[in-house]
């Protein structure tokens, strides 16, 4: 990929993440330096644009390193890190585990912190709330996706296995009959 401002190879791929808007910038080393200096010199962000969210992601990484990183995907929802960088939105709760290493610097940049200290869901009768969070339940996102794929390949054995497993996990967490009723005819 070429630099946006000249013909040299782009080695810096910067994702500017602002509320509701993601912009990608591809620059050669020289233009990247100018770009980053500018952003810093500008100091206070323009009014209305939340400052501090302009987040250089992958600065200092080579194009190769970054493209390897981009191909990383979440086992549950299937989103790739590249898709996330493009959209600025994650695919599922498991992404915070799957992309933890990649997200950490980004989150540190946005919030100036990497550790939650606020409220936590309380242990309640209806919902099991273990210390390690809800990751165990999040598993069913991947199982559902697998089930869909199995049906597409006419592997009904596998699909049935997954369906039963999903039901079992959901019931453990949420009590029986949590699954919403089958959709009525869509109007």
């Amino acid at each position, binding site marked *: 990929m070429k630099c946006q401002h000249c013909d040299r190879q782009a080695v810096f791929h910067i994702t500017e*993440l602002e509320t509701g808007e993601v912009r990608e910038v591809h620059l050669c080393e020289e233009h990247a330096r100018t770009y980053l200096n500018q952003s810093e010199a500008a100091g206070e962000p323009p009014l209305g644009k939340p400052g501090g969210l302009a987040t250089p992601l992958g600065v200092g990484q080579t194009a190769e390193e970054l493209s390897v990183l981009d191909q990383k995907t979440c086992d549950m929802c299937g989103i790739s890190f590249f898709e996330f960088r493009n959209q600025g939105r994650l695919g599922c*709760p498991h992404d915070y585990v799957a992309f933890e290493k990649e997200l950490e610097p980004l989150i540190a940049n946005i919030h100036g912190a990497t550790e939650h200290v*606020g409220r*936590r869901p309380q242990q309640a009768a209806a919902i099991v709330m273990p210390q390690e969070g809800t990751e165990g339940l999040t598993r069913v996102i991947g199982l559902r996706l697998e089930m869909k794929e199995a049906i597409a390949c006419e592997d009904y054995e596998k699909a049935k296995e997954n369906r039963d497993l999903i039901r079992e996990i959901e019931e453990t967490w949420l009590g029986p009959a949590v699954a919403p009723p089958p959709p009525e005819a869509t109007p």
Partner: protein
Amino acid sequence: MKIDTLTDSIGEWLRGTGPESDIVMSSRVRLARNLAHFPFVGRASEQERFDTEALLRQRIAAAPLGGSLEYIDVGHLEEIDRQFLVERQLISREHADAQGARGVAIDGREQVSLMINEEDHLRIQCMHSGLDLAGAFEQIRAVDEQIEKVVPYAFHPKWGYLTACPTNVGTGIRVSVMLHLPALVITRQIDKVFRSLHKISLAVRGLYGEGSQAMGDFYQISNQTTLGKTEEELIEQVGDVVPVLIDYERRAREFLVRETQENVHDQVSRAYGILRTAQTISAEETMQLLSRVRMGVLLGLIGDVTIPDINVLLVRTQPAHLQKIRGVELDTNDRNIERARYLRHHFEGGAEPAN
């Protein structure tokens, strides 16, 4: 719920009461929450959106949330009704424009609204009139605690509440205060004030306008970060600057009265005059003029209008409200004519013109 029943009422946050309500229009707290066992809305299939909507709707309906909630199926609303809910600040513009199964549960006083399938599966919002962040937080926390008993929120011990956008992760809380700052605008101090807010990482945006271009001198101040601080600390972060801003605005108002009394009185009276006599008027101009009149009332320069009156007009002269009140769809030109007629009748003190 019929949208039409909302047309005749006004939201609690428009009452124009509560602490500091001459400057602080409303205080709002919002929580972003997601189900642990579904993809985030942006990645969910049509069926998954349908399932999350059904699950949340049913479980919220069954939860003891104190007071009755009315559910509106936003996915099946006409565009004008969705726009109406946006003007009412019960749903976001994004929620109105989104696709697929989605809805909102609203309490009778329009303080609490629960948006299902916005950017996150659940966005809980609580809005109070005047400066009352503590009250809004207390109410929203009670709602959140009831829902977490019956809905498995996506939660990670290190990252906190997990959200579709990393900018909301952690507490998932957005605390905001809407301020009316006409004197700071007139005295050209507003930019300076906001630059100093950015330094302490608070976000500022105009209420009705695009981006920073505030319409009618209404500004919303909110926290930018959601991780690494407790909910109380984040509320404090916003709450602490509000008295400072109130003080600036009060001083600017005093300055205007002291130094430029005639000018201000003239501006305010002209604004009032246009609102009472115009034959066609845009929503933008209306908002701008209502803002000036609002200040005039607070400075004691206009006597026969009340603040709640103006607050209500600010909402009811917006496009969807105007059309709902009239009961017909109108194009921009016709809306401008109807808006002017509505305002004239309102200020004449007479009954509003029949449809």
